[in-house]
């Protein structure tokens, strides 16, 4: 441990290099992220389309949140945004629940020392695979397999096997298409969640499980009394990151459709934002609505993010900092008393 004096010398002579090393990050981040974020905020107070230079105050917010506003389609805009928010929540919930249950089950199985499972490594690799495939390609793949008519693979197979009499509308039906997107999302993410939970379970001391074994606890009891409580931090982290990821859900809902336009039944908030700032030309898109929706999402994300941040903060570092400050204070007090010079 370096003494306070040594630390001070180091900070005097090398601090400027520290700033030099982190400067590129901050310059680029401010230019490409912070300023666009502020700009989005500004745009959310401005008009839409042809009216996009005018300052309209909170009107965009009141329009998309409550349907009140001077523009012609205020009520429709509100209805669309509300539906998008609802869809986002439904799609997120419908993929998160099966995903976390499946991942948890698999993670427990894969880390169970008593179970003899050949090819564990292979299973892990295959189950993670969907996660790295381009989401756009995945959407295209499922649209082409699950197309609505008998000309597509799944419907043709079901008809050939006489399991159904009519082709099922997997892509255009409001309910079926949502279930499809939930399924695909689960398909994409369960491997990832499984591996994260596995590393969490492997962090639990094996002696706890051994002790429980000797005391005669069965695997269900071990799961609920040991694994689940000790896995809580990583579960919260998974939950929050998944919620934030759910708010960003774009590629799949946007591309899971027939023909040229996205399906309104699958419109999420991210699709809503994208659609609004792509309406018409680049100069005259509906930046106001897009901006207001973005800021609302930002507020939700900020709340969710601060929860994880609070739960994941480095407790050791905070304690160390406190100690250091205390030591510095003592040092100063001593110096004031005199006699000690460095």
């Amino acid at each position, binding site marked *: 441990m370096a003494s306070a004096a040594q630390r001070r010398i180091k900070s005097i002579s090398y601090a400027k290099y520290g700033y030099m090393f982190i400067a590129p990050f901050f310059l680029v981040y401010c230019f490409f992220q912070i300023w666009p974020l502020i700009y989005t905020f500004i745009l959310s107070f401005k008009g839409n389309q042809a009216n996009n230079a005018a300052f309209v105050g909170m009107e965009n917010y009141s329009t998309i949140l409550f349907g009140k506003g001077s523009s012609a389609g205020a009520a429709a805009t509100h209805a669309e945004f509300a539906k998008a928010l609802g869809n986002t929540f439904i799609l997120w919930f419908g993929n998160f629940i099966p995903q976390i249950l499946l991942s948890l089950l698999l993670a427990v199985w894969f880390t169970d020392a008593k179970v003899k499972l050949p090819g564990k490594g292979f299973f892990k690799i295959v189950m993670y695979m969907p996660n790295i495939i381009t989401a756009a390609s995945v959407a295209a793949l499922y649209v082409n397999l699950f197309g609505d008519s008998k000309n597509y693979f799944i419907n043709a197979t079901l008809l050939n096997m006489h399991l159904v009499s009519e082709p099922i509308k997997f892509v255009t039906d409001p309910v079926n298409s949502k279930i499809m997107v939930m399924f695909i999302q689960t398909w994409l993410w369960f491997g990832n969640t499984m591996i994260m939970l596995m590393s969490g379970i492997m962090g639990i001391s094996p002696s706890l499980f051994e002790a429980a074994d000797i005391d005669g606890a069965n695997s269900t009891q071990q799961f609920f009394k040991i694994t689940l409580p000790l896995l809580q931090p990583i579960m919260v982290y998974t939950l929050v990151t998944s919620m*934030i990821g759910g708010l960003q859900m774009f590629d799949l809902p946007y591309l899971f459709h027939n023909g040229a336009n996205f399906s309104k039944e699958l419109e999420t908030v991210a699709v809503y934002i994208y659609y609004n700032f792509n309406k018409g030309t680049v100069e005259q898109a509906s930046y106001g609505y897009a901006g207001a929706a*973005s800021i609302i999402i930002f507020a939700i994300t900020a709340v969710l993010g601060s929860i994880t941040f609070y739960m994941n903060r480095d407790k050791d570092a905070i304690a160390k900092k406190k100690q250091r400050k205390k030591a510095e204070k003592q040092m100063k007090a001593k110096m004031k008393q005199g006699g000690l010079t460095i």
Partner: protein
Amino acid sequence: MSMKEQYGQQKDSYHSKIMAKSIAIFVVCVILTLICLVPIYILIVNSTHAHMDLAQNPSRFFFGKSLGANIKTLMNDLPADAGKAAKRVAQQYSSAFSLGRGYLNSLIIAGFSTLLTVFFSAMTAYGLTVYDFKLSGAAYTFIIGVMMIPVQVSSAGFVRFMYSLHLINSFIPLIVPAIAAPAVIFFMVSYMKSSFPLEIVEASRIDGCGEFRTFITIAIPMMKPAIAVQAIFAFVSNWNNYYTQNMILKNADYATVPIMVSKVLAFDKNIDNGVNYLCITLSIIPIVVVYFILSKFIIAGVALGGVKE
């Protein structure tokens, strides 16, 4: 019943229970593996069938013979006596899904973004861990704080801003922002904290090595494992990034692989299902092959918990 018999029986039933459980788990895993692999298999199988065959019976489980013909359609390389309809189809697909250019664009974007991400993230992480300066704590807190902000939140302003800078249809808005990757920095800082001895920096200073040179010649080679993992993830996420690319690249000349796939998906006439499948196959295969080669690193990287898009 003697003691030995009793315990022997219990032991046997314990063993058979575990065996039964293992078999049940194995079966579930095999089913899940099939769910993961069968869609890809069907996709590849279907891309080897001609449109006419698929129209007759779309439920194909085995390879066909038309892969070559489908590739020729996609490359607009039809025989001279081909019908007008076939020519229209070939024209449509080859203009939307250009093999060479699309892959080159994706490769340029993903490649340069990856280089910038890992280099500058390593540099920022080095600056934050090696030097003890006044704002280092605040800077690190900021980086963790912004880690979770979704791209969608600032995208409206981003597009508008890029438009005012005349950077629509340019790779710059897709490559340069890669310098600032908070999640990667977070990962690298935790890696450096656990496995980068600061004494080595002191030693190189004593030997008269400059600060930047220490970073390049000593720190980077020592951070290779972290850089490799993050490079893989950065490459994959940039290759797959449909949202930002579609936002910026409006001109067909700049289309990347995900954009080309979305274009093929949006066709509503002159559709050739075999070629459709071929396009999707071509967009998936490279990344799947690379994945299986690097899978060990990738799984280890995910387990480290640094990555969740």
